[in-house]
């Protein structure tokens, strides 16, 4: 019986390959505490938002399980370790979503469609990630086949991340947007801008849910910092 209210789950899936070492990792690590601060300032949203962090390189790990970030006494940081396996990230994300959403529902919460912000600074080193991505995102409502708790995936690409590859990560295409670092911009600064986008999206989506709307709210062209390009125009 769902008597605990509605929650909005968000995930940050972040690349911790060796190339991220340095300022980029520092900025990526700062996302979580900044989000916690933003939610602490708005208790109405803070009660409704759950956030989790998954990192990936050669394998994927849960850095922070989906939780109320302001109830954590410490927030973990990120460390680099290896290559860039997108497949590992998607497999773990699927596994986490399944267990987290089912857990929340078992606890009596209604769960909004989850959203996953996917941050990478390079191309995937594995060839078979498409399979894992399929399994994560495919869902046929009519027949019920696929993954029921598929997330909305919002890709963030910096530095060596390939725009076309990242574009394939958009899901669903009509609800999501792609954010790429602008040409010639500084990668660490771009990640900081993406953090702002992520946080404002979480807050706006929460606010929209409170006001009776639904769906993920993502800033569009003209609403993002200058070092980020937004791709939200899908004709194909």
């Amino acid at each position, binding site marked *: *019986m769902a*008597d605990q*209210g509605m929650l909005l789950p968000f995930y940050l899936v972040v690349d911790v390959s060796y190339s991220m070492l340095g300022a980029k990792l520092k900025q990526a690590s700062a996302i979580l505490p900044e989000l916690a601060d933003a939610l602490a300032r708005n*208790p*109405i949203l803070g009660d409704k938002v759950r956030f989790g962090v998954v990192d990936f390189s050669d394998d994927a790990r849960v850095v922070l399980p989906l939780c109320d970030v*302001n109830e954590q006494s410490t927030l973990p940081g990120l460390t680099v370790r290896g290559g860039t396996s997108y497949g590992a990230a998607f497999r773990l994300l699927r596994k986490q979503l399944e267990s987290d959403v089912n857990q929340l529902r078992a606890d009596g919460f209604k769960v909004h*469609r989850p959203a996953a912000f996917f941050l990478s600074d390079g191309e995937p080193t594995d060839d078979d990630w498409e399979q894992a991505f399929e399994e994560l995102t495919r869902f046929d409502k009519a027949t019920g086949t696929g993954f029921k708790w598929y997330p909305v995936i919002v890709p963030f690409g910096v530095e060596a991340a390939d725009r076309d590859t990242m574009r394939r990560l958009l899901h669903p295409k009509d609800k999501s947007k792609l954010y790429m670092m602008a040409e010639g911009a500084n990668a660490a600064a771009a990640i900081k801008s993406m953090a702002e986008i992520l946080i404002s999206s979480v807050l706006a989506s929460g606010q929209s849910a*409170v006001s009776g709307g*639904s769906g993920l709210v993502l800033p569009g062209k003209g609403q993002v910092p200058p070092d980020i390009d937004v791709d939200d125009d899908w004709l194909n």
Partner: protein
Amino acid sequence: MRDSPRSPRPVDVDDAGADTVADGTADGGRAAGTRIDAAPEVDAAAGAPGAGIETGIGADPADGDGDAGSRDGGEAGGERPSLDLIAMRAGSIEDYARDRTYFRQPDPSEATRRIAAIPGPLPLPGGIAASSPAAAGSDNHPLADASTAARQNDHRFSAAPATGVPLRPAGDGAAGGDPADDISVTLRNPVDGERSASRTSGGEPAYRPSGPASGPDVGGRDDDAGGLGDREDYERQESDQGDQGDHDRHGVRPLAPAVMHPWTGMPLVPFVVGVAGRAFTEVVPTLLSEPWELPDTAVDSGRLGGVDVRAASVRGLSHRYDSKPRQDAYGLGVDPDGRWLVAVVADGVSSGRLSHYAASLVARQAPRRVADELAKHGYPQDIDWYALFETLGRNVFHNGRRQLASMAPALDVDDIDEATVVEALATTVTILVCETQATQGQREWSVAWLGDSPAWLLGSDGTWTCLSEVKGSGREVASSKVAALPRVPSHKVGIRNNCGTAAEDDIIMIMTDGVGDPLGDATGDVGRFLATAWRTPPDPLTFAAQVGFGRKSFDDDRTAVAVWSVPEPRE
């Protein structure tokens, strides 16, 4: 020193004479300082009519271990049930203890005194661990029910978490109830350290309600596990405390004087079901930026014929936070014959910027229109609900359009198209018609609704029956689309209605989804809370506080109208 300083004995107030005297007050206050002692002493020693110290939540919800002292007191006397009234305000006791004066001296001329007892995890300031007379091992006592957060409406108990326990002045048995002999309770006031003497028997302080700081367990006074009775201890404590300003370190500010005040009363403590959530504890309501004549909270109560009605509409946390108006409304009416009560609730759709206007319009107009229909037809079953809803919808539309035009003077009324109006104003509506007099123990009722504001019946046995429909039942992803005026479904069946009879003891209520959502299918905590709280009609402000209970993530406006039968007066 007492034998078991960590286990203050409860005041069994009905045995005030026997127990408490035996407790050692006969000693004239030896080791009298144990706070728990104080109660019996206060009680017995001087026929203390003044003994009733009413304390609210005075203390930290102290750690589990430390509580053993005072809680045991509640149990030492013989497995008294531990009553977790404080659970209802999980974790925020301090906020309420702060800046509240919790001690009041009752009027000595009162025949009964109330001792506030918070048995359970809180060591009482002053350590009074009284329990109600019947609670002594009684499972039937209402307070024995662990989920007693909602017992507040029992008139024997104050609205505060204090449970009032009639305390017969020990003057019945012990040393006289002459007010002149009143024991004046010695209260420690850290502000100015003044203490009034007291005590008819012995010169020791009878009672020191200094909160957990002086508890047997808190404050690290392990040298003196329970009895801070000696004057040295007392004084040592004083200096330990130092200057705490107006509050001791646990935020309790005891009332200084040992003077009887001619007034009584307690601040109302908000209700919480489950976890309160940060919003409930942190949000400070903001006044509206525009005066829409909609108060933050509206309450009505009273009797009509053979029914007792409570109605309340409370602005939700999210609107309080965003400085938006309450978008819910209720309306009440009666047919000209006085036979039928009409109650209406309306829930403005949050995305509409004039939804509050729509809701209050409907709540005002619907009872009158239904009453007119009842005058014509006599029975709610004969009312053409669809036509009535159509009329309401038209009114919402036209009045809304005028309102929008007045807000944007550049526009002519006719320039505002329908889509704009419908986007700006939308409200659900649920109408209840029920008989004011039961015949042969049964009352007829009728419900008609558009939207997701449910109607429920609460049986006298605490079971719930939904009279309309439970929102989202069977659907896994709730749709955010809600049917709402001014749009009326194209087919008559779109306006749902239901009718039936209810037993006299049943409570019929309508509510908006601000209450309906946390209630869910009524099998959870909220259902149990409301079933307990609303067994009998509470006083109106308590009803409003119950409608506005705190529960994490439920921040919508809350509205409920509940109808009880007035019990037949017994000859």
